[in-house]
């Protein structure tokens, strides 16, 4: 069995990729995907920690988090769809009617 520490490392890498993507990518869908990466990084971390501490709650947390992530994607896609309907773009940079 691999050392949970490696899982944590993977989680950190995923987190960094996710955050980096969240503020570098213009495309809303890709940002949403990056968001999922962050959430998954958290899930991995929960699992790794659960293994490390021998505590089952971590698994429960992870399952909850997956559910949350799923609903988040659903809501996000719905909102982006609405946004596309109005602005005819999903580029986050181009949707800037509200500012200052």
């Amino acid at each position, binding site marked *: 069995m691999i050392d949970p520490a490696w899982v944590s490392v993977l989680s950190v890498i995923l987190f960094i990729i996710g*955050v980096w993507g*969240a*503020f*570098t*990518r*213009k495309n809303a869908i890709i*940002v949403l995907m990056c968001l999922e990466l962050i959430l998954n990084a958290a899930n991995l971390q929960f699992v790794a920690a659960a293994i490390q501490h021998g505590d089952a709650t971590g698994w429960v947390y992870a399952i909850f988090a997956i559910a949350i992530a799923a609903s988040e994607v659903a809501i996000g896609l719905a909102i982006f769809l609405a946004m596309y309907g109005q602005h005819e773009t999903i580029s*986050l*940079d181009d*949707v*800037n*009617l*509200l*500012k*200052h």
Partner: protein
Amino acid sequence: MAGTETISSTFIEYAIFIVLLPMLAFPIILFLGHIFNGNQKWVKSAKEGGLIALPIMVASFVLSMLLIAEFIGTGTGSHHIGDWLSFGWMSADGMTINEKVFGVGIYIDHVTVMLLFVASFLCMLINIFSIGYMNTDPINDNRNHRFYAEFVLFCSGMLGMVLADSFLWLFIFWELMGLCSYLLIGFYYEKPSAAYAAKKAFLTTRVGDVFLVIGLVMLWNLFDSLDYAVVFNEDLIAQVDPGQLQLALGMMFIGAVGKSAQFPLHVWLPDAMEGPTPVSALIHAATMVNAGLYLVARMFPFFGAPGMHGELVDLAFIIAAIGGITAVMAAAIAFVQDDLKKVLAYSTMSQLAYIFTGLGAALWLANSLDWHTDDKAHAIVVVAFGAALFHLFNHAMAKGMLFMASGSVIHEMHHAHHDMHHHDDHGDDHHDDHDDDHFDAQSMENMGGLASKMPITATAMLVGSASIMGLPLIGGFWSKEGIIANAWRVALEDPRFFLPAACVLIGAAMTGFYMSRMWLKTFAGKPKTEVAANVHENTPWIPIPLVTLTFVSLSSVILAGMMFTHWAGEPNGGYAFFGEKGLLKGLIYEFEHVFANSDAFFFVLTYVAIFIGAIVGPGLAMALYGGSLKDGEKAKPWMQPIINLSSRVNAKRGFDNSAWANSGLSNALKERLYFDKWYDAAMLKLVAGFANVSAAFDRKVVDGTIKTIESTSQKLSTQVRRLTTGSARDYIMMAALGVLVIYLLLGVMV
């Protein structure tokens, strides 16, 4: 003088009514005038308030006379009416708080009595004169009630100032007079020149008042009181620092300079002629200008106190020097004035300067002579002080008369002009009509030869002029000789006094010249205009004060014989009228003293003064302006010789003075030595300029700072809000930056 014993008396209890009656009459007349304005009964029977004011003034006069009669010769008295302000005062060590009081009361002594008489008497006469003068001039219709209201208030101010028992109340009434002078000078408010003159008068005197306040405050600090009863206490005076006291008195003197129109605060007085003539008489003779003299005379106890021996001579010199300078300066300016009232105005200034010189000399003497023990020194001091006060008296009477007489002239000129204009309505001389619009009823260039047409006025004017000039035996002669003599007496001791002494001596000749010039140009010679040829003297009321005052001026010799100078100058008031010598002996004593002085220097001095004042000055004037009346007209027998003499001198000794008249000096004098110009320029350019710059500074810099902060923060706001770019990516980026900062800060903390 040591302490003031309170003399129980009947009339001092009522003395407050001398002040209160006219003061209460002020709102009453104003109110009634407001209600009945234009009502025929009000105009005819009440003379628009004139006949309400008159009984009040008479009552004041009667009360004053009763008071005076009681106090002549009995020394000083005071009557404390009550406390006005009481307040806490922290002691110097900060340990205790004492109670101090500013009280209200009446204070009577010889100076008070004299001034009280002058003020109440003249106010009453001027009131009579006003009824004749004001109510017959259509320009004053429907606003005479305002005149009488302000007039009585003015009188109450003067009477209150004289009767006050402390410098504080002196100042309060002093200011009240300032207000009334402002109102009365600006009586013809619609004339810009009157508005300007009123403002000038108030402002100039206000400058002096500021110093007076400071002086009073300093005095308060020295004595913890302003009551005469306290501050004149010699024991207390001995304890104060002479330097401080001199400063305080000097400050107060500046106030007097402003009020009495002395150099360099003299500029308001000639302009004050913008008011109606009774006002001029009031300001110049009865009230306002005397206030300054009264204030300086009030300082006598400080100078006379043994504790101050020799310490205050500098101030005495300054008083005399200001007087001397003003005497010559004003007289010189009077040379070139053509306006009848302006000549009198400058004459007032000059004569007041005499009194200041006299007071200065007297104060110097009191301060440096050991007069408390030495009888001879005592007499010198008393006579010196008395002479100054006597001149005040003489001048007030004469100048009151002169102004009323000039008012009479102007009034009649005006009427004559008005009548002619009216009768010429159907005539064909339109050119003249046009000229008449600009007719100046006050200019002596338009007069001449009035002696035959206005005998009472001319006589009064003649006596008044003689009194001012100091023609032997008449009015001011007695006092003026005394002033000149005393100035020289001091000059022998203190060489600095040569300046004022020389000034007053030269001034005597100048006075002789300009007063004669004025009389001759007005009353002698041929009429210079049609109007002057048609003047009549027929206005009621006006002659009453003129005649009265003529006799008063002429009877000055009797007062002299009654030892007026001794009585008035005696600080303890112990010297009663007739008390020592009786009238005849007194007269002999005075004559001897003046005309046959045992001291050779003063003997010569007297005759020099008489010579230049009574012969050189008038002689020059006659040479230039003398002339006989129109053929077939004759003046009264007491004037005809003078007119004849003048025409003869003019014929024999007449010379062309056009070179003088057009010289730079003459022009400078016509421009009043540029004082007004410079002051106006200073006010406009410097003060107003600075004020405008300040106002702009306040708006642009002080307020601008706030506005800049506001506009800067608005700009900052725009900048800050610009960070909200509208792009969600940027928002996340900013948040990421925020995370970094959070870690940085947490790291710092750990």
